[in-house]
């Protein structure tokens, strides 16, 4: 009996640790995102734009591209909030639940939306002559990462949903 209680206490502690660890990770990602969107992109982006590689006579290129890129921060922020909520559910010993499944599906949708929007927006800028092929190549890499995140989140959502159903059945097995 005592061993069973000890195991449960250890399991709870691991769950709390995992929840706290996830929260630290999401907080770190949020800080990095803030640095990238608030400093690296506007400041370093402008400096890169002024180098001979990207230089163009039309200096209006950078601002529209920057605005298009900054808009991608919105779904990212929402996804971080959803991830934080998943960490809270894990801390409550509610890892396999329909709530977490829906949150993961929402993250998947946001990632796909963000990647799709960024890809299309950059193609449009490239077509109207307000983008650089090298920048577009980097954008493709970023969009690919977004699509990968979307796929992984969708798969995880399905697995968590199935696990939640098994968990529910298990809890109602006397």
């Amino acid at each position, binding site marked *: 009996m005592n061993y069973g209680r000890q195991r449960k206490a250890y399991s709870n502690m691991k769950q709390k640790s995992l929840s706290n660890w996830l929260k630290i990770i999401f907080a770190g990602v949020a800080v990095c995102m803030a640095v990238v969107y608030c400093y690296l992109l506007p400041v370093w982006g402008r400096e890169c734009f002024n180098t001979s590689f990207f230089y163009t006579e039309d200096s209006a290129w950078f601002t529209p591209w920057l605005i298009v890129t900054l808009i991608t921060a919105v779904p990212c922020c929402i996804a971080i909030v959803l991830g934080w909520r998943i960490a809270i559910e894990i801390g409550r010993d509610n890892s396999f639940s329909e709530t977490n499944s829906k949150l993961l599906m929402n993250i998947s949708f946001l990632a796909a939306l963000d990647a799709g929007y960024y890809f299309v927006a950059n193609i449009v800028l490239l077509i109207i002559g307000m983008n650089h092929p090298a920048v577009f190549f980097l954008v493709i890499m970023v969009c690919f990462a977004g699509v990968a995140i979307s796929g992984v989140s969708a798969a995880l959502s399905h697995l968590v949903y199935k696990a939640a159903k098994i968990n529910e059945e298990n809890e*109602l*097995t*006397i």
Partner: protein
Amino acid sequence: MIVINVDVMLAKRKMSVTELAERVGITIANISILKNGKAKAVKLETLNRICCALNCQPGDVLEYVPDGESSSD
């Protein structure tokens, strides 16, 4: 659906739900889940312990009720 009627046997054996839960080794909440028909499955081991605690046959506590009909007395 299968209905688990422990109330009749509890009354016959003059046993409380708490005592039954202790003898069977499950919580009172689980006994409630059994009585309310919310249980999705019952282990044979659990049924074995219930019958042992109530000194009865499985048919004394299990009753089949067609869906949509109320249980008989």
